[in-house]
């Protein structure tokens, strides 16, 4: 498809907005000509028509060469990804502990999880939950062998699961552990259960002492996967990107219905690239019915004075119409919600947090679509905190998801190689150091903890490094420099060191120097916390003092 046509529309249909990027073959490579996003449901043809009209106005010859006449846009091939809304998975088990173990694994997948156990719910309540209209799958789990806290209620659980499977023949039923072997399950399900027999599948048990439930997680991911799903496809695109750049690449994405955090590494000795990470409904910008916990988590990242109820109102509005109110206070609210979502994802991926900082961090997703670049960089630095240096880029035209849907790795890599510079906007470089000492103003004077020398293009800038400081140093896109750090004491910078020299590259944000605690420690008192966040926020939202 991409070899034959001179133009290609790259469509990412997300939960909140639809983005259309128009790429054209210029010479021997694909170039991004423009992109436009509209609220979800906006016809992609309308978006494409506007982008094509802008190309025609800017360069009529190029538009003619690429056959971008308004009457011929229907024939432009589409490369499309669609973010699938999370489906509800009900987790039923015979003890609170078992439900907790299973749910802890399930929340690290695209499923939206609700749990109930025979300890906490009566059979009628459990049946009501499982028979609910929006439920797509029920995971009925027990330990293998079952624990002493599960055994008394295991037959009731198996019988309840069998009855649910019989009453809702369209439901996917997942059996974990010792359920299928129970006589109560067989008797309740009956000899000839309705529906497709393949809908009842066995999945591995989740037992804490046997690792982190990777087998169960992979099974749940497989069941959730759908061809063309943008969020899942991003993983493949990130792997291709790592392979292409020969760098470790981390992708963090926050959308309306879920988020993605993936770390990809290039293949070694001819092996394909690899990745670890999650696609999770917990990474959603705002969950469908924001509760007090969600509200508090967002409030924790805000500098305004909204109370809980009003913040709840704002989050409900944001969930209902995520494309609305993207300027002014709305932009800040969106970033606060995105920070809360990133923090939730960081909490679900301790293994990634423990790994070395990636060479490149790609920010993607509708949550960051209209935020100022420096605010986006700050949100990432606030939540995904590891010491070291990473180059930050932004998938501004939302190309990665659709490109990830290309099944052939070579073709995917080739298209990505062409569009790399147009599709990924360099935001700059984030430098995070740890163990630098007490935060400024918290007891110690602003005595420099070290010194930075930034050398590049024949110029040299020197700057004192003060513990707890956050600063943006101007380094324009396309510029490379060498940053030499000399600290008074040994600090954490990927490893423990006093002196380090790293290459950094410029971007819209420049060089972001983050000398705050790792992990970030914020005051418990709300007023102090707000003051501190407001100080940092003033740097990230230039010209918008509030």
């Amino acid at each position: 498809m991409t070899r034959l046509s001179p133009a290609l529309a790259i469509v990412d249909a997300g939960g909140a907005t639809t983005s259309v990027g128009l790429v054209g073959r210029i010479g021997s490579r694909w170039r991004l000509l423009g992109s436009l996003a509209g609220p979800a449901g906006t016809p992609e043809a309308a978006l494409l028509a506007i982008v094509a009209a802008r190309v025609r106005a800017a360069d009529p010859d190029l538009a003619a060469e690429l056959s971008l006449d308004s009457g011929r846009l229907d024939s432009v091939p589409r490369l499309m990804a669609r973010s699938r809304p999370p489906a509800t998975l009900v987790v039923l088990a015979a003890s609170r502990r078992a439900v907790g173990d299973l749910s802890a694994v399930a929340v690290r997948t695209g499923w939206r999880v609700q749990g109930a156990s025979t300890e906490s719910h009566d059979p009628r309540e459990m049946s009501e939950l499982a028979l609910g209209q929006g439920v797509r799958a029920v995971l009925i789990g027990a330990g293998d062998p079952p624990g002493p806290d599960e055994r008394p209620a295991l037959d009731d659980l198996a019988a309840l699961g069998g009855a649910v499977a019989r009453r809702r023949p369209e439901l996917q039923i997942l059996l974990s552990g010792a359920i299928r072997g129970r006589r109560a399950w067989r008797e309740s399900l009956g000899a000839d259960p309705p529906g497709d027999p393949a809908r009842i599948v066995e999945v591995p048990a989740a037992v804490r002492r046997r690792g982190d439930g990777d087998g169960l997680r992979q099974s749940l991911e497989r069941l959730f996967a759908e061809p063309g799903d943008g969020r899942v496809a991003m993983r493949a695109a990130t792997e291709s990107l790592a392979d292409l750049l020969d760098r470790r690449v981390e992708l963090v994405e926050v959308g309306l219905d879920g988020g993605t955090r993936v770390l990809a590494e290039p293949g070694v000795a001819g092996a394909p690239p690899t990745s670890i990470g999650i696609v999770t409904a917990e990474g959603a910008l705002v969950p469908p019915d924001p509760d007090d916990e969600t509200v508090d988590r967002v409030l924790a990242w805000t500098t305004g004075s909204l109370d809980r109820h009003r913040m709840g109102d704002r989050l409900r509005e944001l969930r209902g119409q995520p494309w609305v109110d993207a300027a002014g206070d709305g932009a800040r609210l969106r970033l606060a919600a995105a920070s809360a979502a990133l923090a939730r994802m960081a909490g679900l991926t301790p293994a990634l947090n423990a790994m070395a900082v990636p060479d490149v961090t790609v920010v993607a997703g509708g949550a960051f679509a209209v935020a100022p670049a420096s605010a986006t960089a700050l949100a990432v630095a606030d939540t995904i905190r590891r010491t070291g240096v990473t180059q930050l880029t932004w998938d501004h035209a939302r190309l990665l998801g659709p490109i990830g849907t290309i099944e052939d790795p070579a073709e995917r890599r080739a298209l990505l190689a062409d569009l790399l510079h147009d599709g990924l906007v360099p935001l700059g470089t984030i430098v995070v150091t740890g163990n630098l000492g007490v935060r400024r103003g918290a007891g110690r004077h602003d005595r420099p903890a070290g010194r930075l020398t930034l050398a590049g293009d024949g110029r040299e800038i020197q700057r004192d490094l003060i513990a707890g400081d956050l600063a943006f140093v101007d380094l324009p896109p396309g510029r490379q420099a060498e940053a030499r750090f000399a600290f008074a004491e040994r600090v954490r910078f990927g490893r423990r060191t006093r002196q380090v020299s790293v290459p950094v590259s410029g971007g819209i944000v420049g060089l972001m120097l983050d000398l705050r605690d790792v992990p970030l420690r914020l005051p418990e008192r709300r007023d102090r916390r707000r003051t501190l966040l407001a100080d940092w926020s003033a740097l990230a939202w230039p010209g918008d003092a509030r």
Partner: protein
Amino acid sequence: MNVEGPQPGYELIRPRRVVAGPLEARFRLRPGERPLVGPGEAVVRGAPLAERIRDPRTAVVASAGGASAKPGSWWTAAPGRRSRGDGAEQGELLFRSGGRWRIAAGDPAQPLEAPFGGIVRDVQPGTGLTLRTPARGLLGLDVLAGPSTGHLHVLAGRDGHVRASQIDVGAAGAILVVGSHVDAEAITRARAVGVRGIVVAGLGVKERREVVASEQRSQAGAHGLPPFAILVLEGAIGRPIASPFMAVLEVLEGRMVAIIDEPACLAIEDPDLELPRPAPLLVRVTAGPLAGFEGSWAGLAGRHRFAGNVLLEAGLVRFGGRAPVAVPLGDLERFV
């Protein structure tokens, strides 16, 4: 009239449907609530669709109809035999374990009545039932409680705010249109005087919680209050009701309507009633400093910088006779 052709960019604005129909209304059933109708059955307004229960619980019964009993079917104790243990005389079979059935039971409450006539399309005990009807619905964002029926009465204008003192017993049995927002006290009073429903543009989280708590108390009481529902048209923040919606509501003044939650709408049973259509090229601002204002579309404005140093695609909107103003495209809605 086709307004989209000659107006570039108009179709980039999010369309908001005002009226939809015919409706396929879904009513949720909890385990233990007994459907009284079957698929294909025709029902009239007010016909009982299902028995509701209060104080739902699980009961254990020793035998329940022998081998023919299956999960989801209804069980009634044999006449003349006194029940033992949990004392349940009837209920919905959940599952059989250890030779005994668990059933979902509860005390009878007010039945679920059909808010309009239609044909029952689907019944799933413990989950819900679907009613297909030729009625149309004025679409809202969501519904609390319900379903409920009553005569529509417009109590306040599109940007009004109704207080408790404005609601008196004369509104009993009515569904009130209360404008942009309503406080918790007014809702409590409406419930107390027998109002059947409220149509409001915005309902905050605080009021929402109080309504839900009040509804739960009402359901738990032995003498339940009549059905009540709130249709929220816009969201959580109060703003004027959009004029195309208000125009329909004004036409419906005094007519029998119903509030249902799936889809969230005000159901209009009269299929012959002529409803006003939105004006061509009408757009409405949904957020920002101009929130609630309505004007006419004047074309795309390209990328503009807005508050917070944010660059957004914008459209030009003419408010009255003034010069067009650039508004973020995402903050606009059009009506279909």
